[in-house]
Structures are given as C-alpha cells and as structure tokens.
C-alpha cells in the first residue's frame, strides 16, 4: 500500500470540505427548542411558588441535625415540604444579598442578620431570636486529653504539640470563628494562637478535622460536640468572653412562599423548642 505524502505534512484535503451548514442549523434549532421546553415546563423563569412547592431555608451549618429533625416534624404535621441549605452564615447571607431564592434565613449570629436587615432584605416583623448556644474547645476522643481551664493567659500551645493546629471556622466571617477569636482575644491569648490556627470553611469542617484526629484541638459549638461522637469537650468558654451566641431567624422579604411566615412562627413553638433543646441548644 502506497501512502501519499511525506512524513513532513498532513493532508489538507479533509479540511476543505464545505461546512455542514444544514446540520449545524438543525442542531441549533433543536437545542433552542429544548431550552425553551425546559424553561416552560419547570417554571424556570420564576421561582416556584404555591403551597405545593417546598420551602427553602438557609441555615447555619451548626443547625444541621436539629433543624433536619425539626423540619421533618413540621412536614409531618403540616404536609409542607421543607428543604434546608446548610453553610456558613456568612456565605448564606452573601447569597441572599445576591438574590438567592431563600424563603427563611437562620443565622448563627446577630451581625449577619443585621447586615441583611440594613439592606432591607428581611421581613422585619418576623425577625426573632430563636436559639442560644455555647462555645466549646474539643479534642479527638482517642487523644485522651485532659480538661482545660480557660482562664486569662491560658497557654494552649503545649496542647497543640510540635506542629498541631487549632481548627476553627474562618475568623473574619463565620460566626463560630468570630466568637472564638473574640473569646481568645478576651483571654489575651489570640496573638500567640493565631499562627497555629487552621481556618475552615464552616464550623462543621473544623469539627471534622478534630474528629479525624488531624487537629488536636478545635473550637465548635456545644451542640456540634454533642452531635459528633469522635470528639469530646475539654473546656467550655465562659459566656462573657464573647458576644452572646444567638441564632436569629427571619423571613426573607423577597420570598413569595405563603408558608414562610408560618414556618418561622412554628420554630418558636414548644414543639420545635423541644427538638432543639434535646440537641443541646439553649431555648429562651
């Protein structure tokens, strides 16, 4: 078999074929049709409204187990589906600022709720302080670390060992991280600790690092420590060391969901309070 051409060049013949215009046009028409179809069927143009649509709740990561249980109870009692998006309160607030379709917002501190309120994004009348929490220092269960007294000037560096790190949520933005930094500053030890810190996306990620034994110490909420069997509490931060840990809730003003307000109200009822209390949250 004789091959045409030398090894130096590729044959250009194939590329000169006429562009398959008709095929291209048909493909475009098909694609456009599909997009239009999808948008009309799923109501792509507007967020889902009406009783049948699920309620969208943006909630702080530390609420995971408790709110899952509470919203399941709500659905069982009222037949209203609820879907919750958990992340750092800071991330969620920014998303709501950018127009994310949340119906209800449950933050882990007042500051982020204030930010949204100042932007006029909340239904002010529905805002209320819902839950409280405590900040704790945790260690991996297998480490057998002894309890610590968190007094002013307490030296945690020996507990971290040679290159161990203290896991906590991002201290500039995430509530759990901010409370922690505030508390350590009040104790006068933040400057010494800061170089030894590992900041995570949210408080649950910090919890995970301690649970896996990657970090010898971490700062999380008391409720997080309860939810994770692989860690245990070595110290509790005195409430005065940081701003009160308050979880406010509010309906998002842009929400069109008829059940949003009812859900916010329900969260303050004794039935819901019992669920949160069982998980370690403080209820007023």
């Amino acid at each position, binding site marked *: *078999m*004789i*091959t045409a*051409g*030398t*090894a*130096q*060049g590729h044959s250009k013949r194939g590329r000169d074929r006429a562009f398959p215009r008709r095929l291209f046009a048909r493909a475009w028409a098909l694609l456009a049709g599909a997009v239009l179809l999808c948008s009309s069927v799923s109501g792509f143009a507007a967020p889902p409204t009406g009783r049948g649509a699920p309620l969208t709740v943006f909630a702080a990561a530390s609420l995971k187990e408790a709110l899952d249980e509470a919203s399941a109870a709500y659905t069982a009692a009222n037949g209203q589906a609820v879907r919750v998006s958990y992340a750092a309160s800071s991330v969620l607030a920014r998303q709501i600022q950018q127009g994310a379709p949340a119906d209800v917002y449950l933050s882990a501190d007042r500051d982020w709720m204030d930010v949204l309120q100042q932007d006029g994004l909340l239904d002010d009348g529905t805002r209320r302080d819902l839950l409280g929490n405590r900040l704790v220092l945790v260690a991996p269960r297998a480490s057998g670390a002894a309890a610590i007294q968190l007094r002013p000037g307490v030296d945690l560096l020996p507990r971290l060992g040679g290159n161990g790190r203290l896991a906590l949520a991002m201290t500039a933005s995430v509530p759990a991280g901010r409370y922690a930094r505030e508390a350590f500053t009040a104790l006068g030890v933040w400057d010494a600790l800061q170089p030894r810190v590992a900041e995570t996306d949210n408080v649950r990620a910090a919890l995970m690092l301690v649970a896996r034994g990657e970090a010898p110490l971490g700062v999380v909420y008391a409720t997080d420590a309860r939810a994770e069997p692989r860690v245990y509490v070595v110290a509790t931060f005195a409430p005065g060391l940081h701003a009160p840990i308050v979880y406010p809730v509010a309906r998002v003003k842009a929400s069109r969901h008829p059940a949003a307000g009812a859900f916010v109200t329900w969260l303050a009822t004794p039935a819901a309070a019992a669920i949160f209390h069982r998980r370690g949250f403080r209820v007023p």
Partner: protein
Amino acid sequence: MLSLDIHLRRGAFRRHVRIEDAARVIALGGASGAGKTSVLHAIAGLVRPLSGYIEVEGRRLFDSARGIDLPPHERRIGYVFQDTRLFPHLDVRANLHYGRRGPGFDAAGSTDIVELLGIGHLLGRRTANLSGGEAQRVALGRALLSQPAVLLLDEPLSMLDQARRDELIPYLQRVRDRTRLPIVYVSHSMEEIRRLTGSVHRLE
C-alpha cells in the same frame, strides 16, 4: 547474503516466502500489494512473521524455532522508506546523524557519504523545505550513516516523477558500488531493478 523462510500474515491468509540468495545486491519484484514491503518489514523487525527464520550475512535475526527475535534497534539494518520519514523536528544535519553510534563514529566517513549523495548544501535546512528527490537522498544518507550491516530500500523512487527518478538512480548505483553494503531493493518497476542488480526474486 539473504536466507529466509517465513510465513507472514496477510489479512486472513498466510503467505509463505522463501528466499535463498548469496548475491550482495538482491531485488524483490512484483506487482504492488504483492507483499514485498511486508518482507522488508519482517527483515527489519517491524513485523513479526508467524513462523520461520531470517538470516542476513550469516546473522540470525529471527528464528521462531529457537526463540530468536531481535528488536529492530539491534538488527543493524538501514531502512530507506518509500515515504522518506525524515524527522520533521530535526534539521537535515540532525537527521543524518540520528543513527550515529557512540564515540567510535567515523567523521571522515560521514563526509564521504554526504559527498557521495550530493547533499552537503542541504545540511542546515529544515526537512519541510526539501524536494522529493533531496529528501530521499537525505533518507538514504541517514540510513547509511547509522552504520548498518545491510541496506533495505523500500520502493524509494516510486513517489518521484520520472525526471527525479533518472536523477536518483546514479546515486543508488554509487551507493551500491562504493559502500559494498549488502542491499535488498524492493520495487514494482523492473526497469529500476534492472539498472541496479541482476538478482531478482518475484513475489506474486
């Protein structure tokens, strides 16, 4: 100098080729598609025969009965391909010297071959800028400079027009006469073969 008895795979068929020839310059003739290139590929080690043996100048390159199968880079064959196959990322000089072996390389011999083939003026050129005839002479020089024990030429002129062919045949004759290398020449053109050697094997 060539002694081979092999079975080659040809699609769904087997092809039996037997050549026993003591002449220094041997030609394989036959129509296109008769399998001449496959025989050269087998001698070079680029294709493995189903069975048999291949012996060149007394050296056994392949023997299925004895489990001998030298890889191509150990067979010391110089192969000139129909499509030249010059390396596009190297210039002419680098192509020519690609096959040189170790410190014992004979620099003077290299100049001789360059002169023999009249390619001295092409040394700095990129391979893309060579004419068909020039490229084939460079390919020939490259094969020769790798210090082979035998030269295999696979229809080296079939891609050239008549004028270039007439130009190149004297170079081939020079190589034949001056290097004293064993040569296996494959072509479907009996006229080419006649001008280079008397010993022809026809493959059908």
